[in-house]
């Protein structure tokens, strides 16, 4: 299946997997990564897992209106984040990408500020929670309409061809997104133009309640790459090393001008679709439990432990440290103060038109 790093096969029947259940290395090649890097993956996954808890609490207290948990998706998101050249490449995330965004370097205070809609939100309180963006990090601001970010993502990749700065765009979405017309329109354009982009699908088997069988007739998302003349990689998205290495290969392939590709990360979401969902209506508890056994953090912790890079002590310290950072970031976000009412009328256009000046007057005057 796998020849070597830089030689993963597309369209495999089984997801590419590099860490076994017991944490053993399965790769047919030597892993060539620094211990700090290896530990970094774990720390980033832990941050993703813990921030959901923290924001979930705020949501239940009525302090924020919505949470889209990424528990179960952390390995895919963190692997992907580490494969990106941060601040150089562009990333088009979707609402479930909190682990991705933190791992890309988005400060907690910014993410939390966006969710809380306080002055700590660089987007000025304009959107519901879990919809951040960052001009600094080249992270396109999340939009709710599923797959609507796919054609714009391809647009940045076309622009990169002109700019010639060896950049790549990564576009992230769920399995359900692949049914939208906009998804197809974007991926097809990328294929026709050979745009430097990687389409990263977190396939958690559900779009809210709709399972993959009702979503599409194909067995995998990766196989859809055939339709666009590009490779489609199928990866165990609960294996952070497989996620990272395959994503890196796909991204570097795009950077070298070889062309775009689809990477499917097979994952599972442990929680409901969002804080508004009741998943007991459509899936059995046993199914959730089964997937939890493949937990990306547990498995990867075993991997680190086998290599002597981790132990219970490190775990306790890391958790405490990360949680403290989260608490502090959230505190800063909460204390940043309220977004003023009149901001409602700004940023519709570069210059506020007369009509909006009058409407502002109507409300405030």
């Amino acid at each position: 299946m796998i020849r070597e790093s830089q030689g993963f096969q597309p369209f495999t029947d089984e997801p590419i997997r590099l860490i076994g259940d017991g944490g053993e290395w399965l790769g047919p090649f030597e892993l060539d990564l620094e211990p700090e890097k290896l530990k970094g993956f774990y720390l980033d996954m832990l941050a993703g897992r813990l921030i959901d808890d923290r924001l979930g609490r705020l949501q239940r207290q009525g302090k924020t209106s919505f949470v889209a948990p990424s528990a179960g998706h952390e390995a895919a998101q963190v692997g992907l984040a580490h494969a990106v050249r941060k601040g150089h490449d562009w990333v088009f995330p979707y609402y479930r990408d909190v682990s991705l965004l933190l791992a890309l370097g988005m400060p907690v205070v910014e993410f939390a500020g966006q969710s809380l809609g306080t002055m700590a939100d660089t987007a000025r309180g304009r959107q519901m929670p879990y919809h951040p963006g960052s001009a600094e990090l080249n992270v396109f601001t999340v939009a709710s309409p599923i797959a609507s970010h796919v054609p714009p993502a391809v647009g940045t990749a076309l622009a990169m061809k002109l700019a010639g700065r060896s950049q790549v765009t990564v576009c992230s979405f769920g399995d359900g997104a692949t049914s939208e017309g906009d998804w197809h329109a974007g991926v097809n354009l990328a294929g026709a133009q050979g745009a430097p982009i990687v389409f990263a699908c977190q396939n958690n088997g559900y779009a809210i309640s709709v399972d993959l069988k009702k979503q599409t007739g194909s067995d995998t998302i990766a196989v859809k790459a055939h339709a666009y003349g590009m490779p489609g990689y199928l990866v165990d998205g609960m294996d952070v090393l497989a996620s990272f290495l395959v994503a890196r290969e796909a991204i570097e392939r795009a950077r070298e001008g070889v062309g775009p590709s689809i990477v499917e990360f097979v994952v599972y979401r442990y929680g409901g679709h969002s804080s508004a969902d009741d998943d007991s209506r459509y899936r059995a508890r046993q199914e959730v439990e089964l997937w939890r056994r493949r937990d990306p953090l547990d498995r990867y912790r075993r991997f680190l432990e086998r290599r002597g890079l981790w132990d219970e002590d490190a775990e306790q310290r890391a958790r405490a440290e990360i949680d403290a950072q989260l608490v502090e970031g959230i505190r800063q976000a909460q204390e940043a103060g309220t977004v003023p009412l009149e901001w409602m009328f700004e940023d519709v256009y570069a210059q506020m038109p007369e009509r909006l000046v009058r409407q502002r007057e109507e409300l405030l005057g």
Partner: protein
Amino acid sequence: MTSTQAVRERQSGVKTMAQAIAATLDQEMARDDRVVVIGEDVGKRGGVFLATDKLFDKYGPDRVIDSPLSEAAIIGAALGMAVYGLRPVAEIQFADYVFPGFDQLVSQVAKIRYRSGGAFTAPLVVRMPAGGGVRGGHHHSQNPDTHFVHTAGLKVVYPSTPSDSAGLLRSAIRDEDPVIVMEPKRLYRSVKEAVPEGDHAVEIGKAAVRREGDDVVLVSYGGSMAETLKAADALTEQGIGAHVLDLRSLQPWDETAVLEAVARVGRVVLVSESPRSAGFMAEVSATISEEVMDSLLAPPLRVTGFDTPYPYVQDREYLPSPNRILKAVERALTY
């Protein structure tokens, strides 16, 4: 609520809007096996607002179709089913998400009768929760009603009460033309009332008089009816009589009811949470001028959503508030 109270309410037909919709769908599906439901999560999940609750268990996957995540597929497939002879009721999860299916609505659904010379028709319904006030930001709060009203071939209704939701949905399902049913999501669970049982239908195109009065006419519909009625009640306390019309249907809309009231009273305030610019209330205003200008004692004034994308933090402030309505009434009265 205690469970005895719940049982009593169910028996007497007291329902929230979401319950009234689910019950009407159930009754229509039982009555006519051509009625089918299609949309995202309408199956086991019963819809994210439970407007299709329990239908899947009762009617199975061929009549309650969980579609892939594509509004074009939902609306287009509904059209095909209608053309074939069924009576599909499509659900768009949020009105904001109708746009990926907008081409199907505008190019296919609205025009099939016309372009085929009547050979093919589209007796279908597209339901969609719409409007703000739920802290959903701009992609869970929009009110695209004007786009539909401006599209020849579509009918558009926008109820504000559980009973009207049931009655208009029933009329829509039985209509020979495509009907967009907009549902004010912030009222889905906040109001309960007794919904008439049986074949209760509300005629499309007929407004309801919600308050009688001689000093000013208030015209509104959908979610903004709540604020409009609050404003009317505040006016009553000041001794000002507001004649309040709930349009209920936007295409066709009840020109007669509006023009008669305005001709009689001479002052009118138009309330809608859709963005102002070229929004539906501009049509009502223009029609009033064209038809009864001489009776006007003040210009028709609009209180609407603002010409911004729907905000998040200012979720409530975007909406026409009783206060903004009262200011407009004052302007109309002192003009």
